[in-house]
């Protein structure tokens, strides 16, 4: 027992190898590299959402708001102040973390659906502000022509491939961080709050404090996702991270499996790919996803990963007999 270092190392190495192998195969095809970038970004965003909603039980329908703030912070910093990637990451983490703290504080005394309403409102407010504050955000024109950032000194990213390495590395680091957190004292506190707040309080957990931790973590992951998205898309508009996106990220989490980091990863990867495959359907895509989420919520609340794990343990138990 204890901490499965070997397992973690295995996950990390596999992911690294995959992310380095794939571009060498598809090097000529920027479409696939962009798709992989997008998957990494969505994995980060979904993981953040999983912390607050899957683990801590606070329904967040405003994840897009955090992503938008992260993306716009990065864009404004890049255009006006610096293009150094570490600085940009730190800036988006700090800004979204603070916003996450504020949203968390306003949700502290609320329960269940009221938190969903508050976060929904937060996402909508962010979108309206981004549309309206034209001096800063140029409104619906968006911020365009964002250059690739520099890593250190004058070493700049050269293109999608370089960005893929950066995104893969950050994704793995953030996944390991989240994995460690949910398998520690904090993760247990989150889950205890999700399951029974009163019992959590009377078991020695400072409930408001850990709710805020979860909110801040969720917001920072969203912010980092937004920051990386900006460099992948090279432009940002207010409606990119609107309500549609918030719901999409919820769907990724629910599809893969709520309350499971790897479930979120699976959901994010699957939905990103299927989003591309179903592109011919245009706006009717949302109909497909809407039906999908209802079916999953009713028939497989554990998500695909949960079902897969059940099937796996069923088969292994059968084989042992």
């Amino acid at each position, binding site marked *: 027992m204890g901490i499965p270092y070997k397992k973690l190392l295995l996950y990390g190495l596999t992911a690294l190898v995959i992310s380095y192998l794939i571009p060498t195969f598809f090097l000529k095809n920027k479409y696939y590299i962009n798709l992989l970038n997008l998957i990494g970004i969505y994995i980060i965003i979904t993981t953040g959402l999983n912390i607050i909603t899957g683990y801590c039980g606070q329904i967040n329908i405003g994840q897009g708001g955090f992503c938008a703030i992260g993306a716009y912070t990065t864009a404004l910093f890049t255009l006006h102040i610096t293009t150094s990637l570490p600085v940009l990451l730190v800036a988006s983490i700090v800004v979204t973390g603070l916003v996450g703290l504020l949203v968390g504080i306003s949700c502290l005394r609320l329960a269940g659906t009221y938190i969903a309403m508050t976060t929904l409102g937060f996402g909508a407010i962010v979108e309206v502000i981004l549309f309206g504050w034209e001096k800063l955000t140029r409104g619906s024109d968006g911020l365009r022509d964002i250059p690739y950032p520099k890593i250190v000194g004058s070493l700049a990213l050269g293109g999608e491939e370089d960005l893929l390495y950066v995104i893969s590395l950050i994704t793995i680091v953030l996944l390991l961080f989240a994995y460690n957190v949910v398998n*520690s004292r904090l993760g247990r506190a989150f889950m*205890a709050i999700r399951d029974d707040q009163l*019992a959590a309080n009377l078991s020695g957990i400072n409930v408001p404090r850990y709710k805020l931790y979860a909110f801040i973590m969720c917001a920072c992951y969203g912010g980092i996702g937004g920051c990386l998205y900006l460099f992948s898309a090279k432009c940002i508009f207010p409606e990119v991270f609107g309500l549609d996106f918030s719901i999409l990220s919820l769907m990724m989490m629910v599809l893969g499996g709520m309350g499971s980091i790897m479930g979120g990863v699976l959901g994010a990867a699957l939905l990103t790919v299927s989003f591309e495959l179903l592109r011919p359907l245009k706006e009717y895509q949302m109909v497909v996803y809407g039906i999908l989420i209802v079916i999953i919520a009713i028939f497989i609340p554990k998500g695909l990963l949960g079902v897969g794990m059940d099937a796996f343990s069923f088969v292994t138990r059968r084989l042992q007999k």
Partner: protein
Amino acid sequence: MNSRHMSEPPILETKDLSMHFGGLKALDKINFQVARGCIKAIIGPNGSGKTTLFNIITGAHQPSSGRVSFEGADITSLPGFKIVSSGIARTFQNIRLFPQMTVLANVMVGNHSRMKGGLWASGVRWRGISAEEQRCEEKAIRMLELVGFTGDLKMKSSGLPYGSQRLVELARALSAEPRLIVLDEPTAGMNTTETMAMLPTIRKLRDLGITVLLIEHNMRLVMGVAESIMVLNGGQKIAEGSPEEIWNDQRVVEAYLGKRDPRYKVACS
């Protein structure tokens, strides 16, 4: 090991503790003490304020007036989680486990207040975190053994049978390393075998140096295990003393069975 001197200050003490819900006096000026290292029971008919008293002691409710002090320190206005870290843990009348978490995780949550790892340290597995996790897990397993839990540690706690859930809850409370454990009807809903198995467990806690305060309806258990009993009725303390004294106390009998009508004296006797 558990030498008890009358001169030693009580571990828990309430002063004029009152709790009003609107016009209802759920508790009315309760004064009582729990001596360190003893097993004390609170009994009383339904609605007499036992659970309310427990909720106030453990910080789930704020009293309307009065004071609770634990080991000499005032804990009346402390939030529940701080009371746990100051050394009081509890179980619930209607079991409150974390249903989606495994048995082991449930018990490990109990140890929360004794652990240090913060967000950063946990996230990057900073020095000592892994060892702390390991210790917490070993401790949880020890506590489950102590209360006599035999079953799958990796199972979701909602899938356990009722009696086992009670044991897990007790183990969770013990993980908090309490000096006073507050048990709200530890055998409610248990069958006779399970109830009788609880008796030595409660004594074992006392022998470990943990003071036990319990609410119990099962008189056989109370008379068998408690060293001191307080009786509540309608929010007031009507008697306090050793099991023998309580057994023979006229007011207690009246509270449970009602007054004997003198007109039917012949028929009753």
